[in-house]
């Protein structure tokens, strides 16, 4: 057979002619938007099977965390899902607060909600515009990127950093939000809805976009649950599970918002759910900002819980007050008491339930810290999702699942 087709190729004696071709996608393939490898077995353009290899940026977060005092682990959480680091930061602080039984003031909760929802918007915005890029619409990406910069400017005003924010402290924030931050927030709230509307107009009913995404990479709700999907990807499949509602943290119960759900769990539904979630996030920020403005007088100056045992005192106090110096010393040298116990706390991250399982033996560092990383968990379904799909669909599926390599490989 092969002699007729390819007279110049002679297969060794006894070999079976291969009917499919193998394609290596990644780990540095530009279309994968991250570092992971897929070895695809292709029959023509149809994928017969996909085998994933991950771990190309495994950085040993869990081992590192065993050597870091609680308050230094924030820097690690930044680098999990770097598209929405504030959510990770807050999640970690809340885990610590749960362990230390710290009650945060309402104003802190609301400020946290603002920051977390901004992070969610920037996360979804990147994901959705990348889906646009993969369907051939680069302009939306270039356009909305400017508005992500506005969010970064707000972070910068609050903590001085853009991407890996390291925002907040155990018990609250490192400093109060300044007026510029609020002004920038107002500016963002005024400008962004128009842009989001425009973004939706460009894509949602765009014929090409719909043709490319509808029916691409679907997953049924039952399979999604069995695969441990959470977040927008699970909601696109039709399950309205959202940690913000089911285990409210940071006073999310005070807010009025909806959980958008899809039906088919395909790329289009995932896109729509993320878009709708951005609208909900805007609603939440709006409510939270109003609530923050209601605090008057001394209450408006509250930005951390009153826990001198765990919250580093102000630097000028350290230099001038005896007590502050003692606490500073105790915290930095690890003399404060940390209860032994095990805590699981989860937050709704950009990609789903981001969980922290912390075992403390009373020492300064965690005895064991396990991160429940949503990306790692749902990416394993990719080989099942992409089976039988066209190669080009598989690429969109990958970007619309929003697999963040940093979070996946920890």
């Amino acid at each position: 057979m092969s002699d007729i087709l390819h007279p110049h190729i002679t297969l060794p004696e006894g070999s079976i002619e291969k009917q499919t071709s193998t394609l290596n996608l990644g780990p540095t393939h530009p279309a994968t938007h991250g570092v992971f490898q897929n070895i695809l077995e292709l029959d023509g353009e149809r994928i017969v099977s996909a085998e994933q290899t991950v771990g190309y940026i495994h950085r040993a977060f869990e081992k590192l965390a065993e050597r870091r005092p609680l308050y230094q682990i924030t820097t690690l959480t930044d680098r999990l899902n770097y598209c929405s680091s504030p959510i990770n930061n807050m999640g970690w602080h809340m885990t610590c607060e749960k362990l230390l039984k710290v009650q945060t003031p309402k104003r802190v909760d609301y400020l946290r909600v603002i920051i977390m929802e901004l992070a969610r918007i920037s996360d979804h915005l990147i994901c959705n515009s990348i889906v646009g890029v993969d369907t051939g619409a680069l302009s939306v990406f270039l356009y909305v990127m400017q508005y992500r910069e506005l969010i970064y400017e707000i972070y910068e005003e609050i903590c001085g950093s853009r991407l890996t924010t390291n925002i907040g402290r155990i018990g609250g924030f490192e400093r109060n939000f300044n007026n510029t931050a609020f002004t920038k927030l107002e500016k963002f709230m005024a400008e962004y809805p128009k842009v989001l509307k425009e973004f939706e107009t460009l894509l949602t009913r765009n014929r090409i976009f719909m043709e490319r995404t509808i029916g691409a990479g679907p997953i049924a709700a039952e399979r999604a649950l069995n695969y441990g999907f959470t977040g927008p990807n699970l909601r696109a499949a039709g399950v309205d599970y959202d940690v913000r509602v089911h285990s409210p943290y940071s006073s999310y119960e005070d807010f009025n918002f909806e959980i958008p759900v899809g039906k088919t769990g395909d790329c289009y539904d995932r896109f729509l759910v993320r878009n709708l979630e951005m609208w909900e996030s805007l609603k939440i920020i709006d409510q939270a900002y109003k609530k923050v403005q209601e605090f008057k007088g001394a209450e408006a100056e509250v930005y951390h819980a009153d826990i001198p045992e765990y919250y580093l005192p102000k630097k000028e106090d350290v230099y001038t007050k005896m007590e502050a110096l003692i606490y500073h010393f105790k915290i930095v040298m690890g003399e404060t008491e940390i209860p032994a116990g095990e805590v699981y706390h989860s937050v709704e991250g950009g990609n789903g339930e981001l969980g922290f399982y912390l075992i403390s033996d009373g020492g300064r560092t965690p005895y064991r810290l396990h991160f429940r990383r949503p990306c790692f968990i749902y990416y394993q379904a990719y080989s099942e999702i992409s089976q039988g799909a066209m190669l080009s669909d598989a690429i969109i599926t990958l970007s619309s699942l929003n697999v963040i390599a940093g979070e996946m490989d920890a």
Partner: protein
Amino acid sequence: MSRPVRFNIHAKDADIRDNVAITEMPEGLQGEGFFATNLEQVVGLARKNSLWPLPFATSCCGIEFMATMGSHYDLSRFGSERLGFTPRQCDLLMVMGTIAKKMAPVLRQVYLQMAEPRWVLAVGACASSGGIFDTYSVLQGIDQVIPVDVYVPGCPPRPEAILDGFIRIQDLVHNESLRRRNSEHYTALLGSYGIQ
């Protein structure tokens, strides 16, 4: 309605001194109808202003690179409009993010595939030195496997810093001797990385 993009309704007459940025002319002799300079400078000038970067983005720094490349900071202003995604066509390898030991052979492979002359920019603490990840799984700086021309510090560096690193690469490209890649010194440098 104010929109970020406006139609140019007051088009100006083309004015080459005002609208278009032109690089400085290299030193040389000129007269009517001719300009003479040495080849090295012309080649440097051409290379410098049309670098094709290969983004090797693995983690957080890659997101900052997206911002650099995006409309706000716009890397294409420096002549790198064209991001090549194949190492065969690119001159500048931009390594952004943590390189794990599992990734190191891949990075080396990509570097080897690039044609000379090639430059390497290590963006961020992880690519430069391993950064905060002094762990069993992370390569402690990409200079353990490939030679690096410019390091950009930061975790992640701001887009301005990445641009600064890029401009420094441009300086290197501009001033590089045409014979450098054939020199013994360069062969020895590559030899120290086991590259023939």
